[in-house]
């Protein structure tokens, strides 16, 4: 087995950092955490060269199992189990790995002013990073589940200890919702494992499970795959989050400290969309192709888009507004995946990456203003443009990117999803077009709440109580600038930055379904 250890070292560098953070003297804690997140980021850049070129060049002519950099070690092979430590990336895994290391690095810089027991904070932060990187790389269902759960514990404490006034409620709600999903995923895991027949043995291997014929009973029993698909869907829908499982999100995002909100919105939500693309669709393609399933998921996606935008319009809490905008934007991911078109899949994947950037940026920007004026009440803000010109400029960039202004990253994802859903065949000739029109119209709502909040927060006459508010600091620019650059880069060069890497894998998944 020729393991390259690259992915393994990316995953476990933050964990190592956690160990170091627990023992270094207090004044070095922040710097240690920064060093290890930076190391994880630099290592993750090492994945890039493996993905340059056309899919044929990258993966070879046999694109069946297009995974790169696979590390595989036997883990548990007793009592009838065959569980491997197996990680690898393909076109949908590696953009999210890079996104994770980038956002974690920036969130680490954004965490510089955490004053309450920094040792515990950074230790949990690094543990969380390991968990997320593991989720995006695991190729063994059991390992995937372990990493999935591993993100739960640190997040619970990061919200519960360092969060806002209603942090206890938000933390337990987050924990409970996710655990509900995990429990259902566990049942599917049992089901898959004992139903699988890979050359006479049961398997957890996610690549083998996607191979036709490995789940023989599933090929014939419709109820079986619908049941498994539904349970997996709930597990992932809680994370995305899809209506009606979304109610944990506004609580958790609003109560979490700023850097943790960045990670929650930027990365944790992506675990849901990634799960659908990595597990639900490739392993249960028959279920995904059922018209009722496509209808349900498509409608839920549209509900997310419209409902999230309407809720965002009604908010006066700046952070809550951003939280609801996440729900709206993640609706595009679900819609794009549900309708089974090439453009829709690519748009959904692009939307995940671009939302990772814009939502992290927006939460960070809200955090900056909260640090200065200690409230997030939009009606009380106003006229900040004159006091904080640089901050206002960066904010407008971030918010417009989220709004979907052409030339910035939010636009590409949404337009691809809409293009895809317009062409979709799975809902019959009219159905998909109706959903597309509704979603397209609701883009106006997005523009509405973003422009309206920009107007209320930044424009207007300067208020005397904000006379002494300092502009954005250099450290904060250091966090915001890369996000702004990425937002522009993805918007201007979508093919070179994202699509060229992801389309091969997505086409392969789509081929399994069709």
């Amino acid at each position, binding site marked *: 087995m020729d393991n390259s250890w690259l992915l393994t070292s990316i995953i476990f560098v933050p964990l190592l950092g956690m160990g170091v953070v627990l023992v270094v003297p207090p004044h070095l804690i922040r710097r240690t955490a920064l060093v290890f997140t930076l190391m994880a980021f630099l290592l993750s850049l090492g994945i890039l060269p493996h993905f340059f070129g056309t899919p044929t060049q990258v993966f070879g002519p046999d694109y069946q199992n297009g995974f790169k950099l696979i590390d595989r070690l036997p883990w548990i092979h007793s009592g009838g189990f065959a569980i491997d430590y197996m990680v690898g990336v393909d076109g949908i895994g590696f953009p999210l790995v890079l996104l994770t290391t980038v956002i974690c690095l920036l969130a680490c810089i954004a965490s510089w002013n955490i004053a309450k027991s920094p040792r515990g904070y950074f230790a949990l932060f690094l543990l969380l990073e390991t968990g997320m990187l593991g989720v995006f790389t695991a190729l063994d269902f059991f390992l995937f589940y*372990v990493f999935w759960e591993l993100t739960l514990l640190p997040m619970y404490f990061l919200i519960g200890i360092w969060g806002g006034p209603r942090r206890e409620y938000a933390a337990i709600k987050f924990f409970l919702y996710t655990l509900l999903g995990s429990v259902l995923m566990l049942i599917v895991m049992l089901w898959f494992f004992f139903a699988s027949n890979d050359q006479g043995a049961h398997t957890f291997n996610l690549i083998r499970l996607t191979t036709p014929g490995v789940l023989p009973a599933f090929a014939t029993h419709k109820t079986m795959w619908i049941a498994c698909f539904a349970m997996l869907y709930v597990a992932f829908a809680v994370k995305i989050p899809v209506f009606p499982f979304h109610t944990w999100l506004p609580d958790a995002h609003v109560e979490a400290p700023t850097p943790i909100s960045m990670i929650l919105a930027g990365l944790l939500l992506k675990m849901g969309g990634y799960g659908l693309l990595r597990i639900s669709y490739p392993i249960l393609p028959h279920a995904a192709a059922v018209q009722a399933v496509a209808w349900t998921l498509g409608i839920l996606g549209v509900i997310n888009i419209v409902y999230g935008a309407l809720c965002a319009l009604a908010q006066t809490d700046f952070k809550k507004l951003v939280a609801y905008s996440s729900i709206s934007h993640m609706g595009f991911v679900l819609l794009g995946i549900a309708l089974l078109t090439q453009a829709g899949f690519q748009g959904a994947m692009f939307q995940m990456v671009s939302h990772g950037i814009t939502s992290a940026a927006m939460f960070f920007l809200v955090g900056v203003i909260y640090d200065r004026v200690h409230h997030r009440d939009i009606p009380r803000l106003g006229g900040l443009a004159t006091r904080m010109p640089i901050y206002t400029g960066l904010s407008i960039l971030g918010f417009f990117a989220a709004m979907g202004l052409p030339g910035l990253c939010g636009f590409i994802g949404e337009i691809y999803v809409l293009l895809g859903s317009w062409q979709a065949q799975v809902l019959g000739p009219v159905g998909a077009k109706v959903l597309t029109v509704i979603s397209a119209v609701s883009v106006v709502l997005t523009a509405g709440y973003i422009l309206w909040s920009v107007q209320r927060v930044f424009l207007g006459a300067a208020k005397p109580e904000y006379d002494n508010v300092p502009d954005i600091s250099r450290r904060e620019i250091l966090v915001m600038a890369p996000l702004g650059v990425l937002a522009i880069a993805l918007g201007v060069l979508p093919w070179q930055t994202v699509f060229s890497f992801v389309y091969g894998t997505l086409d392969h998944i789509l081929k399994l379904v069709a």
Partner: protein
Amino acid sequence: MDGLTPENLRYLWPVLALIVTLGAIPVGALAAKERSGHRGLLAATLAGLALAVILALRLNPQSAIRNPQSAGWLSQYLFLDPLYRFVIVYLCVFLGGVLLVSTSLWRKPTWEWPVYLCLLTGSLIGMILLASARHLIFLAIAFEMASLPSYVLVGFRRFNSKSAEGAAKYVVFGAVCSALMLYGISLLYGATGTFDWEQIVLRLGVEGVAPLSVAALVCLFIGLAFKISLVPMHFWCPDAFEAAGADVAAWLSVGSKSAALLALARLAHILLPSIAPGVRDHAILLVSVVAIVTMTVANLSAYWQTSVKRLLAYSSIAHAGYIVCGVLVLSDAGTAAIVAYILVYLLMNLGAFSVTGLIEAQSGSDHLDNFTGLGTRNPRLAAVMMFFLFSLVGLPPLAGFAVKWILLSTLWQHQLAFVVVAILANTLFSLFYYMRIARAMYFSSPLPVPSTQSTGGSALATIQVPGLTAAVLAVCATGLIALFLGWGILNSLSLNLFAT
């Protein structure tokens, strides 16, 4: 009957070593001086336990299985199989851990220490024999041997009215249940004319079982269910654990429950495969309903507790409900799952009760409020407690998840999916009350004013962790991580007990 030859006595050596230890403690207590005796007696008891472990490890139970004659008359009373050896090692090691923790919780006059040691060792012998008994009279004697010292241990804090109440409930409940069990045994003897379990099973009949025998079997089940604390025979458990010291509660929650669980698993796995199918299906239905009701009732009751020992008592009832599901699987895999589970259960329960004991000993009560702010008062202790709590919930990366997974997959393979769903739903319920402790430790800041006179300012003081207890806690916590990373060991170890 071929008398007491050295050959067959070999299997009894570990137990004899414990009996000698039991006899040596009072003698040593009389001989030793008041002060130094305390540690000396502990060392002597630990040495006795270690000797029993070594003797047990030197046994070769495989030969007893292949050639039952080699164990002679002894094999008429005990199952001398690898599980017998496992139980000795398991319970002796566990008692060693409990004793090490006891040293930092001990607040009584020194002269009571040897009494305490004797009672624990005595109940240990009872539990070992209970888990391995095949002769029903022997089973009943072992049952009482395990129970009687436990009653006294629960009431050991005799100047405390709660302690008296808990012990009294335990005694009354225990007396009724053991009477029922004896009655069941006598009925079985009437129906079959033998006390040997395998003979009884053979004579009960393959076509159908007489109603009287069914009643007798149910009575036997009730007796064991009392020890396992299955609903509705669980009422003693929270009261007894609240009454007892945390060390005794840990001992009872793991020791007596696992002994009775293994006894039940043994009896059931001989009885159920060969009994009439109609009776078997009803028995499985009965046990699965009892198990599901047990875990659900316990998890829902636990939420309202403010005494952490009571909370952990309900948690132990819920876990008994999970573990007993292993009995439903009519193969060795079921018992293997039980063995793996109780191994890990030992680590997490000993740990959780030890931390609670430290808080109780140093701040006056085990009330949930006394855990407030432990995350800042003693970060390491709080972090370790989180390991135990998360493992009790059954979350990776801790061994509590691995054993739950082993249990669930065993059940799944034997078409018991509805039990799997029940256990998982209960896992979700249980999150709430375990997290109440986490919330107290981390999310609330220490109360500004001490709540009552009795707890005083000490309620919020730093909690000291004496060296021996710290070592036990460290072993438990690292064990939980290590046994998760290498949980294949749990699997192969437990399955090897049944390899022939």
